[in-house]
């Protein structure tokens, strides 16, 4: 099942990230503001652009595509069943080790030092004191044997354990009526999920895989595992959690992948 790590994949670029591309597309990235797109183009009338516009007019086509992607976020939020438990599997079906995914190759993973690691809290949270690794391990543990599905189309069954995210958010006094939970990671990856998914019974902050501490390539010491989102919506090496009402975006979402990406 595991492909050779040298193979080409959008999720594992061959070279290090070239920041000049980011600078080059600064204006475009500024336009990918979900809120303004929602305001400006969500109307079904935008669809009429498709028939009226010249297909070579890339920006008009792209604005329709982006508007439909935002519309699909709303549809997915509507389809989401907050208390529907996804299928779980037996320990015998667990793939060890799990399959690697990141925006770089597995050799480029920079291990996080658990001793100096801290989980920062920000935004609409009452108790913003940072958490250490031993404090996190002391929290009640929930185990999930669930399917990981990548946006590319591959999948595997993994066995994850850690604190239930809802329980954790309640413990720190987060505003559970806020819209988003956003994550920052040690490798500069960012991600965000909707509050309904954060509160789903099968969403955890995982510290273990197959009953052992998660190994470096898979997010040690802390990563998100939600049973109802695509793989890239599960940030690894988490260093901060923010609860917010302001759309936070994310690494892949800012590059055109659908934000909700629920499964």
């Amino acid at each position: 099942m595991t492909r050779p790590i040298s193979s080409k994949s959008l999720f594992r670029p061959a070279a290090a990230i070239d920041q000049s591309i980011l600078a080059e597309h600064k204006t475009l990235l500024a336009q990918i503001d979900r809120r303004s797109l929602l305001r400006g183009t969500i109307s079904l009338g935008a669809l009429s652009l498709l028939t009226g516009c010249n297909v070579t007019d890339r920006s008009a086509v792209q604005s329709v595509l982006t508007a439909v992607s935002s519309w699909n976020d709303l549809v997915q939020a509507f389809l989401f069943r907050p208390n529907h438990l996804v299928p779980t599997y037996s320990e015998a079906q667990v793939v060890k080790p799990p399959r690697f995914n990141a925006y770089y190759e597995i050799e480029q993973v920079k291990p996080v030092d658990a001793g100096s690691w801290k989980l920062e809290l920000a935004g609409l949270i009452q108790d913003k004191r940072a958490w250490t690794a031993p404090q996190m391990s002391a929290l009640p543990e929930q185990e999930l044997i669930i399917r990981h599905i990548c946006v590319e189309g591959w999948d595997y069954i993994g066995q994850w354990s850690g604190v239930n995210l809802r329980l954790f958010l309640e413990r720190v006094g987060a505003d559970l009526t806020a819209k988003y939970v956003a994550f920052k990671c040690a490798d500069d990856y960012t991600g965000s999920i909707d509050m309904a998914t954060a509160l789903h019974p099968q969403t955890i902050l995982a510290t273990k895989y197959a009953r052992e501490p998660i190994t470096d390539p898979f997010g040690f010491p802390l990563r998100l595992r939600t049973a109802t989102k695509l793989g890239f919506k599960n940030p690894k090496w988490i260093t901060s959690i923010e609860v917010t009402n302001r759309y936070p975006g994310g690494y892949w979402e800012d590059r055109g992948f659908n934000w909700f990406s629920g499964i």
Partner: protein
Amino acid sequence: MTRATVKSHTRHGLRLHPLPLRIMHWTNAVAMIIMIGSGWKIYNDEVLFGWLHFPDWITIGGEAQGALQWHFLGMWILAINGIAYLIYGLVSGRFRRMLLPIRLRELIATVRDALRLHLAHDDLTRYNAVQRTLYVGIILVGILQVISGLVVWKPMQFSELTTLFYDFQGARLVHFLGMAAIVLFLLVHVALALLVPKTLVAMVTGGPELDAPPRAVPPAPAPSPDIA
């Protein structure tokens, strides 16, 4: 119970392919091209068959995210148009009139004629058994694509539906095979339309007028003697 058929009053101007049908046909053509082209790009990121990659120049969307955006735009056009088509076909009686019945003996005879290149196509308003079979089949494949597509998109929210395909990869495989069936259909469909260009013209202009199409009337709830 006798199936009463009446010669309907001559409906002037009613053509083989009424305007709503033509609009839906060409909308579907565009949606299908979007879905197939972007689907090929999405497939390339995790192939089901090691020997099969689709060259980038026949795919739609550029990069993976672009292809996904096109696919999730196309799905709305395809699904909404498809539902409208099914309702239209059922309510107008077109499905019953044009696509049914399909008789095995007729089907075999038509296939034999086709292989001998003796296929009659003078009367565009009547589909032969092969056409009926292919059109009914492709409608069913289209429905299967929507269902398997829903499962590929939302295998967890629709986990009950996912079990119909064994698992997520099962749904991916069915979705791929459905695409293959549609592409095969399209090759035959387009080739035949080009061989008999008046069929293509008919799907643009509406085709020949139907002067007095025999119209099946649903049995009345309480049959009265003067219906015959």
